[in-house]
């Protein structure tokens, strides 16, 4: 914003556009619910946008077969803004709800969009089991390293030393590596991107939706109001610039069996110093997903 003083050119404004100009994702937005409840510059809005772009550009599954479930928290409201079948489940239980729908109607593809607190704190047990069963669903976890909606308490993803409202002397316990946990529990597709890498994120979500079985996308997002402000990381712009610097692209071959290579590094005062991003796991032979396995197991009756 250095050259702010440049003069403003208003000659390009046209009063009456020749056609009805709409946002490319407008049909996928619930207009009654917009504007969102999110703070200005929040990464959740960007992630929803990336998801909608993935649906329109990269997904091979028809939109009427997709439904979106979310849990509680800031991210929990995401499903309400998307004009598809959706459900806002109770805290931590978005995955069981989605599993129930997937079993009752296997033709539907559940997308779970929820936060790190919802999926990995109160709902970790369900995530592990859905990954173990290889339920056909895509989980998009927006990781902002904090409980945002309740006012900024420390989450299981808050890095050591970070100050939050409930850790005034700095976070004591170690954080989770979400991608590591999910791969260890049996997910067949796993990727991590920051909100800065919009195009890559959107393409990865598209791949995850097309993937048969349990796919997981971790989105590193900025909660500049509750996390950034208390740790001197600045506003949403500064935090996204931080992501831009900290991201390190990694490929499946680079990681091998040592999932600790995907650990996020954080320094007090500096913020995130290393965020490995990329597609960490993509099982190419796509093992049979759960609802198909059920159908095969019960074939005796026909």
């Amino acid at each position, binding site marked *: 914003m250095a050259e702010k003083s440049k003069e403003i050119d208003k000659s390009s404004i046209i009063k009456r556009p020749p056609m009805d100009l709409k946002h490319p994702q407008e049909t996928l937005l619930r207009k009654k619910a917009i504007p969102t409840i999110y703070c200005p510059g929040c990464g959740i809005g960007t992630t929803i946008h990336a998801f909608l772009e993935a649906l329109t550009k990269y997904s091979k599954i028809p939109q009427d077969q997709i439904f979106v479930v979310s849990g509680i928290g800031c991210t929990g409201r995401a499903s309400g803004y998307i004009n598809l*079948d959706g459900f806002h489940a109770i805290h931590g239980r978005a995955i069981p709800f989605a*599993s*129930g729908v997937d079993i009752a109607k296997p033709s539907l593809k559940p997308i779970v969009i929820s936060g790190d607190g919802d999926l990995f704190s109160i709902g970790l047990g369900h995530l592990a089991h859905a990954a173990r069963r290889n339920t056909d669903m895509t989980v998009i976890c927006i990781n902002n390293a904090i409980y945002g909606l309740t006012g900024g308490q420390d989450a299981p993803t808050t890095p050591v030393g970070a100050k939050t409202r409930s850790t005034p002397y700095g976070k004591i316990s170690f954080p989770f590596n979400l991608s590591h946990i999910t791969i260890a529990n049996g997910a067949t597709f796993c990727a991590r991107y920051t909100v800065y890498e919009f195009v890559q994120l959107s393409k990865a979500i598209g791949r995850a939706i097309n993937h048969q079985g349990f796919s997981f996308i971790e989105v590193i997002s900025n909660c500049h109001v509750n996390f950034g402000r208390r740790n001197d990381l600045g506003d949403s712009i500064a935090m996204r610039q931080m992501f831009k610097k900290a991201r390190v692209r990694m490929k499946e071959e680079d990681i091998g069996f040592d999932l600790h290579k995907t650990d996020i590094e954080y320094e007090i005062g500096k913020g995130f110093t290393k965020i490995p991003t990329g597609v960490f796991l993509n099982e190419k032979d796509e093992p049979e997903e759960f609802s198909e396995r059920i159908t095969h197991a019960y074939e005796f009756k026909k």
Partner: protein
Amino acid sequence: MVVEKQQQKVLTGTYFKNGNWAIIEGAIASGIAEFFAYPISPASEIVEYVTYRLPAVGGKAAFIVEDEIASINMCIGASWAGSKVLTATSGPGFSLKQEGLGLAYMTETPLVCVNIMRGGPSTGLPTFSAQGDYMQAQFGSHGDYPAIALTPWSVQECFDLTIEAFNISEQLRSPVILLADGEVGRMMEEITIPDEKDIKVINRKQPPKNTDKSKFRQYDVSGQDDLVPPMAHFGEGYKIFGTGLTHTEDGLPKLDEDLHIELITRLYKKLEVNKHLFTEPYTYEIDDAEVVVIATGITARACLQAVMDARDQGMKVGLYRPITVWPFPKEDIEKIAQKAEIIVAEMSMGQLIWPVERFAKKKCTLVRRIGGTPPEPKKILDAVRKLVKK
């Protein structure tokens, strides 16, 4: 021959079986497609039998999930996808399910939750019987909601009331709880399953086929006399949205006082308008009775013995057994209290006596026994004798 029999949806005939078996047969006769639960005594037999029986009659899935909370949420999901679902549990599991049940009441999701009651609190007496979950069934989840709970006293009723529970749940778009005590669940006695054509199965109201899908409002009750909105399902093109938050008729969250009052009042009113759907209570000679014994489940069977003995001895005693415990039959209790003294017999420290005393507007006698057995008929008879003498 055995395999052929298994493929029948309704096993018409007379059997000598237990209550847990009858509940599954009732649920299958109602046409459940999924069953999700977590094993817990004394409801484990349900889980074991349904995983064998349901796939064989064309059900989509019956399996054990990771925990009680997951099971209720998976049931809600499957119900929103258009299936009839059942879950079964016992006391501790029922406590864990409460938040999910609250969601089901708020989002108006039809499902049936069986609770085979066991001794508590906490792990308590896992394999023993109790009647301690009556209050939990109505007040277990936070906030205001009208609960529906049915309670059987025999194996035959386990079958009949399960079908009844599904019919009520589908018609009212509400979860229904089947509260059977452990004794009823595991007791073996004769049960007759009628012909398939004699079983009345009602399915949920769905939006008419010519509905404009883009204008569909999922909680719109205008034109619905029963105050129950028709239920659209996922994958039908309606783009529905469900939330546990206070919601508008479109299903979208809106935190507004008036809206909340309107929504919660409708949930209560829905039950009042459809009062006729609830199962009538069982009564035994209460018309001329001076003393009426109120009891449910296995305790009511002990009471029936006591009441019969008392009648033999010339005392004017009757038995009133509410089959629909929630919503509480307050008019009946008020009527009984006007002309008779009331004894409440329970297999708990006293739960049903709270609403009974509230609506009777007088002190009632409580006969209780905890620890796995119902009060003996002798004890109830003693209590009756004391009141009659007065």
